[in-house]
């Protein structure tokens, strides 16, 4: 299958390793992957700040870049959700609609479309999984603690397939880390406090690595960990699943 690789702007600029790991994972499971070079951003930073109307040109660009694929895969639940919920392009509405249906976050693509049951990865560490809100409550890649419903977690299931990895349970299984896009600077005090509390939960449970399906939340928690001079690392789930 032809997969278009959508790499969020901040991952492209700051975490190229996450994008490379995503590409390697998809190729390992038999996808023909193309990275359209003219891509930039899904437009979420503007839209979530109340400037949806300024994200039109990002949408047009997105549709131009990603119209020709069977699937579009992105290592971020948040950017995927934004495309799913808000991608519109008056000039090519049908293409935009198709993209909204065919875009997947990496871990749900692996479990739901590639039907991955086995990985040959090995990562002998204690790992805490941060459930990023948009992937969880928007894309339903994990069950939400608020609902009276069967628990499941697509990224959790993938991590369980990794040899040696010990998935640690947390005090609060799915509380927001406080990144929130421009919220992280606009509401700096609350954002940082939320991040510190989330990090503390992982530290209290003695994790060595914090992982998740959204690098933005991890970047925020990494900033806090580094300021605290902690030895705990953050790693995107793709970076763990490619430890083969």
């Amino acid at each position: 299958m032809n997969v278009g690789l959508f790499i969020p702007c901040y991952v492209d600029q700051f975490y190229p390793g996450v994008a490379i790991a995503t590409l390697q994972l998809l190729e390992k499971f038999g996808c023909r992957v193309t990275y359209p070079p003219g891509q930039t951003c899904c437009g979420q930073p503007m839209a979530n700040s109340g400037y949806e109307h300024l994200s039109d040109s990002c949408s047009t660009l997105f549709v131009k870049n990603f119209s020709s694929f069977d699937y579009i895969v992105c290592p971020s639940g948040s950017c995927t959700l934004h495309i799913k919920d808000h991608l519109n392009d008056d000039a090519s509405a049908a293409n935009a609609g198709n993209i909204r249906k065919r875009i997947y976050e990496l871990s749900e693509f692996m479990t739901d479309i590639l039907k991955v049951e086995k990985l040959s990865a090995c990562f002998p560490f204690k790992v805490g999984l941060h459930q990023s809100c948009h992937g969880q409550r928007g894309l339903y890649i994990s069950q939400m603690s608020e609902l009276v419903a069967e628990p499941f977690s697509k990224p959790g299931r993938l991590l369980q397939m990794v040899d040696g990895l010990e998935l640690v349970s947390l005090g609060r299984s799915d509380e927001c880390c406080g990144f929130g896009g421009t919220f992280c600077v606009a509401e700096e005090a609350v954002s940082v406090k939320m991040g510190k509390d989330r990090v503390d939960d992982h530290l209290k449970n003695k994790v060595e690595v914090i992982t998740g399906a959204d690098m933005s939340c991890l970047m925020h928690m990494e900033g806090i960990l580094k300021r605290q001079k902690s030895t705990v690392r953050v790693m995107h789930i793709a970076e763990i699943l490619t430890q083969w």
Partner: protein
Amino acid sequence: MVNHVSLSETFNKDEERVNWHDETLWWVRQKRDKAVWQIPEWEELRDMASQIKMNALSNLHDYLLQFEKNALANGMVVHWAADADEHNDIVYDILAKNKVERIVKSKSMLTEECHLNHFLAKKGIDVIDTDLGERIVQLAEEAPSHIVLPCIHKKKEEIGELFHRFLNTPEGNADPQFLTAAARIHLREKFMTRRVAITGVNFAIAETGEFVICTNEGNADMGAHLSDIHIACMGIEKLIPQREHLSVFLRLLARSATGQPVTTYSSHFVRPLPGQELHIVLVDNGRTRQLGRPDFRNSLKCIRCGACMNTCPVYRRSGGHSYHNAIAGPIGAILAPNLDMKEYADLPFASTLCGSCSNVCPVKIDIHQQLYKWRQVLTKEGHTPAAKTAAMKVMAGTLSRPAVYRFAGKAGRWFMRNIPWLTNNRFNPWYKQRDMPAPPKESFGDWYRKNKR
């Protein structure tokens, strides 16, 4: 300027207190979780409640008239108030006509919304709030910080001090049971001597013309039953079509609010006691305007349980007063801009859009989606700062041109590597308490061009 950003920054100066506030409310969220897991059909109940409310809102005109007709037949006096001022005037007129200057009032978020206490105080009326939490914030001359737990921001020691000052309890005594007993004695005298009681309304039933008040303390009942005149104030969205629908809402309300199976008192008021006057004031105050906004009308389904506040990671760490509105938290943030867009333009931005609020909401209001939509409305109506608009335009311009984006990214990373103080300084809100990510030499795009094409 006073807004959520500045108020929550102040709240966060005392980190220990933030921890305590967060943990206290998280404990309530956990109690709620335990209670709702006892009900296998919980999600169905939420669905049903949502549908009943949608029906009520879609036919509000008819149900209101039906309610009025039945309430009049039951012997109530029915008043209609278009806004907060009319509501306050109606209440005052009843008091003035009966030459009453001292009253008791049980909890009513509507009267908070209308600033009734303040209005009556200026007219020389002495109002005693009889809900314990409300009485505490009243003594402290503060507003409630939570719709169900009005004084949740206060520690028991602070309440002990207040009671020492106002109710002559011994200095330094902060034993909750002792303080509650002192409040009981203090309030008992007010109940016995005051002729007029104001209450709120949780549900009004069109079919029967009765209304229901839910409390844990029984203070609404005590006030109403001992009064010569009972004035019940309600927003028009409190209406439900039939009495049997209560079986859905009463199961949802207390479990969502505090994790109790039901409120201690769920009292039905159908007709005045012999010799008593029973007034009901039906208040619009912006509700029909909200009903006219397709994106926001279902916010009127709210039954004021407060679950969205208890679960909100922002609310727990910013405190109810940071919302500078009678109703705080996520639900307050989608109701307030309807009352005054300019005044409350900051509130829809006081969220990470995590969506937990929508999931706990017993009537399934899509709160976080409405927060997103309010942001768009507020921006279009010109209620966001000019500097932010300018920055967003630059960002949009960069992100919509691949060559400009690549250049800006490369330049940005170069500066971060070579002149780090450009970003690592106190003017950068990210850097204040967080390190910047390490800027790599190569973006993924650069790598891909070299290695894959």
